[in-house]
């Protein structure tokens, strides 16, 4: 679904990583680790077309990102759920409306019960009518995850989705992502949290990718 071929990225101050090749297949589960500043968020942004590669080729849903029209990219994004590291919302709309946005803003029908079930799952049922600026860091992450998966995407990209959460809630969200993965969604989670990776690997077959020294490597089985 997402294919990198010899991709390099450079913000202008020298390449962040070079000649990266990777495939995120349907139904796969990947973690992405690496030191802070290694380029994990950058890698994720390349995965949904927010950034274009400096060199090499990236295909999203079998289409070359470099040649995508704006509408075609929008259509692809409707099939990719994203949890940003800094979760952004429409601050004047309620959590519930924000979570439903991927459906309502793309002309797809919204089932109120789906939204409330999902909010229940991520523990935000009581905050459904709250405005995003009044949420805590952890609540924001949970709302962002709910928004990312409301439209049952083919791919879920999550950047540190459990960074501000306690272990119970982290497990809960990870379980949700695992459920989604079992239904065929390709999942890529950038995280530092080794405990979380172990928790997931105990339940599914997840691969761990690591960015270090400008390369993308498959991490060893010790994790």
């Amino acid at each position, binding site marked *: 679904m997402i294919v990198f071929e010899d991709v390099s990225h450079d913000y202008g101050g020298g390449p962040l990583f070079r000649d990266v090749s990777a495939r995120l297949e349907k139904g796969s589960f990947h973690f992405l680790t690496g030191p802070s500043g290694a380029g994990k968020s950058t890698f994720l942004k390349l995965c949904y077309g*927010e950034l274009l590669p400096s060199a090499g080729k990236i295909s999203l849903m079998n289409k070359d990102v470099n040649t995508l029209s*704006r*509408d075609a990219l*929008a*259509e*692809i*994004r*409707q*099939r*990719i759920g*994203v949890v*940003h590291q800094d979760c*952004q*919302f*429409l*601050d*004047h*709309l309620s959590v519930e*409306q924000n979570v*439903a*946005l*991927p459906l*309502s*803003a*793309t*002309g*797809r*029908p*919204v089932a109120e019960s789906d939204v409330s079930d999902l909010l229940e799952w991520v523990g935000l049922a009581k905050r459904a009518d709250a405005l995003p600026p009044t949420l805590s860091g952890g609540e924001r992450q949970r709302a962002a995850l709910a*928004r990312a998966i409301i439209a049952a995407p083919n791919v879920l990209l999550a950047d540190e989705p459990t960074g501000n959460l306690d272990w119970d809630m982290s497990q809960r969200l990870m379980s949700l992502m695992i459920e989604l993965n079992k239904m065929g969604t390709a999942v890529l989670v950038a995280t530092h949290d080794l405990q979380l990776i172990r928790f997931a690997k105990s339940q599914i077959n997840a691969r761990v990718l690591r960015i270090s020294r400008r390369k993308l490597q498959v991490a060893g089985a010790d994790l």
Partner: protein
Amino acid sequence: MSAREISRLVVPRRGQSVWLISLSAGAMAFLAVFALALSVTSAQLARTWSAALAQTATVRLAAPPEEMEAQTAIVLEVLRTTPGIESAHVMVPDEQAALLEAWLGPDLPLDALPLPRLIEITETSEGPDRQGLRLRLAAEAPGAVFDDHTRWRRPLAEAAGRLRSFALVSLGLIGGVTAAIIVLAASAALASNGQVIRVLRLVGARDRFIARAFVRQISLRAGLGALVGTALGMGALAALPQAGGGVHLLSGLGFAGAGWLLPLVIPPLAMVLAWAASLTTAFQVLRGVT
């Protein structure tokens, strides 16, 4: 929540641009009402005065009622036998009323006035010997006066035509300025809502949806502002003191009868203008944002 409902909500209803749009659309609509009234009134004046001009000359006949018919016959006979005159035509009271209306307004009780009879002359290209004709008329029909004074109306008719052009140019300028303000306000609205655009992009909304969300708000504001401005302008026109006589252009500035419907096109027009201007701007801005 449907796409339609959400598209109404995604752009926050705040910011100065909202006020800027309503206020300027209102002010422009107010001005447009006057420009429109001026154009309609001056067009009417130009038409009346030009019509009067085409009848290059008239004979004004004042006589006691019982002698009127006889004198008219004499004058017509004189005119018929004068070289340089193609035809002569006795004006019926309605025609006379129409001519006077431009000057005195439509509500004068003409019946009550001792009006002279007017005989309209169409001259040949050479025209008559004016001095000779005056003398003949003085001799045969003492109450008749040959009058080619309509010529002095020519500059007036021209001025009215010019005034109409000014009014139309003003309408054009008002439209142009409105469009420019909308473009500025739309850019400001898009620039100050970067996060809204980023979030909508992230969830896969197309440019068309994002643009429409902004455009809808802007054109509604513009339409609403223009509605208020138009209403105020029409109110001000209706409240203009209607002088009984005197300079009709001042006292008569405005619309007559169904003409009052004309300014009602201003608000929808402002809305369409705002829609077009903001849509173009929105697409242009969105194309520059990834």
